[in-house]
């Protein structure tokens, strides 16, 4: 499992959502440019898990992708923090309450160090 979710985007359409598992996990929503606009999770209180969470969001955004994951809370936070590390901001549709108190990752800074070291060597 990589830090970033890299699965292909799927159309957020009723027939695809209906085929999703009712399991716990994380998901991302994207706009027409396939830019992440929201990161969410289907937790143990979500009725029908990922299928239920995405069913509530039909018609709001064109694309989605999911990852079944029992550790949905930590994975959710990791995806938000990775997004911040990559873009300098959180996804536009995540509320301030959802992102309050999140930590910071140094993914981008460390990539630059690794490249610099490689070039130097």
């Amino acid at each position, binding site marked *: 499992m990589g*830090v970033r979710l890299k699965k292909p985007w799927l159309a957020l359409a009723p027939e695809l959502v209906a085929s999703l598992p009712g399991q716990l996990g994380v998901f991302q929503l994207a706009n027409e440019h396939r830019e992440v606009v929201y990161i969410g999770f289907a*937790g*143990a*209180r979500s009725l029908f898990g990922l299928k239920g969470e995405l069913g509530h969001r039909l018609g709001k955004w064109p694309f989605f992708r999911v990852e079944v994951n*029992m*550790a*949905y*809370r*930590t*994975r959710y*936070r*990791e995806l938000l*923090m990775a997004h911040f590390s990559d873009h300098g901001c959180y996804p536009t549709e995540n509320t301030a309450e959802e992102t309050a*108190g*999140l*930590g*910071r*990752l*140094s*993914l981008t*800074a*460390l990539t630059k*160090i690794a490249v610099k070291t490689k070039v130097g060597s």
Partner: protein
Amino acid sequence: MLVRMVRRFVREEIVPLELDLDPDTDELAEEDSIRLKAIVQSMGLFGLGIPEEYGGPDIDMVTQTLISMEISQHRAGLYAPCYGVFGGAGLAQLFESSDAQKESYLYPTLRGEKRGFFGLTEPSGGSDPARAIQTRAVRDGDDWVINGSKIFISGADRADFGLVFARTSPDKGRGGVTCFIVDTDTPGFYVRRIVHTLRSAHYATELQFEDMRVPHANVLGGVNKGFAIANDRLSRQRIPYSAGCIGVAIKAHEMAVEYSKIRETFGAPLSSRQSIQWMLVDNEIDIQQARWATLEAADLADKGLPFRKQAAMAKLVSTEGASRVVDRSMQIHGGYGVTKDFPFERWYREMRIRRIGEGPSEVQRHIIARDILGSSLR
């Protein structure tokens, strides 16, 4: 009376809140947290583990241990007892810091303005930190330059500063380790990645230090005296760590006893079956053993007597015993026991970590054996 008051607080204020919380969360809504902290302050118990001269409650280690056994008796109780509304000492090593360090780090931490992390374990090992530490600190004028990495570090991504242990004298073994107070906005400080574990409510982090410059004024406790700081913390921490396990075991056992009386199989309650009765008996024995061992260690600590062996025994007996109690209680609950509707699955996962964290069972046995034999085994 104090213990009964805390028990009532947990049952009337914390447990009902969990009915609506995500079963894997370790945080409360801010308004609930503020409200509950005010209640704890009115009970005179805010800041458990903080010395009285720094504003903590005036209670001894035995009482603190009994309270720790109560505040862990809920779903999130093992790692987030009462969701942190009792406050706590956090990085107790800072009580030994210089006046200037206290102003910059200890007092802001006690006021809730700063957060710290404890950075000891490295990819090369955690059970033998004195030898495993490979992070190097080299003196350069008024600074130290630190290079290396740490793993399984809690809260570093959200912290303002941390205690980082680094090797300053490569040829001195445990006498060559120094503790540095490091601000997390220091250039060269990186949170490399999140480390996911069984404890899905919370993650650890891996850190990397690249030519990180730390002023000499940020050395805590003196150069090459870091291992004593780490070691003291590890011994003392084992007592509340044990008490938390016992609290969860008590709650799991209590639920198993109740369930066994109402759940019927083949026309009779589970409690009438000898196989179930023996499970409950074994639960009771595991809990009593752990309670006695932990309270003895706390009593010795209160009296200023050596308690390293007793703390190791308490840690060993309570983590292993509580693991068995949670397992048996889950078994008695059958299919419900493994669902997220009940707290057992969370306790089962988190309790497994307890046999490794703060020194695994094998290290505790090593400490006890060394004490029995009267000298180092190595």
